[in-house]
């Protein structure tokens, strides 16, 4: 590693960090960052659309469920773009919500709501929810550059 790879403090940096208030007015800003990151990785329009949907649904769930609609709480996103994948770590500081407890409906039951968690799971290749050190939730979502053959 060259000196140019290190920050002034000597720390190595492998991701882009973004912090936003839990207000949905900032969702377009978040999508701009993630969309450009998807382009950087080399995703086509289809994969880019999937990633944008997943991150939007994830942040919407944080605002609604982890923060109960409070609009001034911090939401952090870490973006790691490599040749193999785009990894998004979404960190909140609210209550840890087990995704099993977020109502999700069968797709054939057509009615408003209840699609968010389902869409996150179907659009990303790896999805993992875990309680973080702050008592909130860290959601890791990964989209691979090379898609498994059975994935559409």
């Amino acid at each position, binding site marked *: 590693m060259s000196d140019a790879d290190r920050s002034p403090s000597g720390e190595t940096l492998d991701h882009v960090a973004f912090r936003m208030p839990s207000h949905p007015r900032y*969702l377009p800003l978040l999508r701009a960052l993630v969309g450009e990151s998807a382009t950087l990785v080399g995703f086509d329009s289809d994969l880019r*659309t999937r990633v944008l*949907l997943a991150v*939007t649904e994830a942040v*919407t769930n944080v605002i609604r469920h982890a923060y109960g609609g409070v609009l001034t709480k911090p939401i952090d996103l870490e973006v790691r773009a490599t040749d193999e994948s785009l990894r998004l770590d979404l960190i909140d500081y609210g209550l840890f919500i087990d995704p099993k407890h977020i109502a999700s409906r069968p797709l054939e039951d057509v009615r408003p*709501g209840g699609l968010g968690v389902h869409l996150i799971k179907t*659009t990303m290749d790896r999805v993992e929810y875990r309680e973080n050190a702050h008592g909130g939730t860290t959601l890791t979502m990964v989209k691979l550059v090379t898609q498994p053959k059975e994935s559409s």
Partner: protein
Amino acid sequence: MKVSQETKGSASLFIVEGQVDMHTSPELRGHLREALTQQASPLVVDLTSVGFIDSSGLATLIEALQAVGKYGGKLRLCGLTPEVRKLFDLAQLSTIFDLRDNREDACGD
């Protein structure tokens, strides 16, 4: 997001521009609710200039679809970009809605 309304023949046309998400879908819902109160039909939503729609936006359209069904009206969507069409497909909603290619077709009888 911007929503403008026109009347085309018997159709009540809503032209939506921008991104529809948790922040903007309440505004779209408000516009549609007014037409639904008046039992407008066909109610047409032109999505030609919409680049993104999330589950909040889809829920708003499902609500409108169910509302027009209650008074025997019709809801048509038109001008879906490939990206927005993909979002409908992912939610398995493409077959639920009456999707038309363009505004003229959607506003017809």
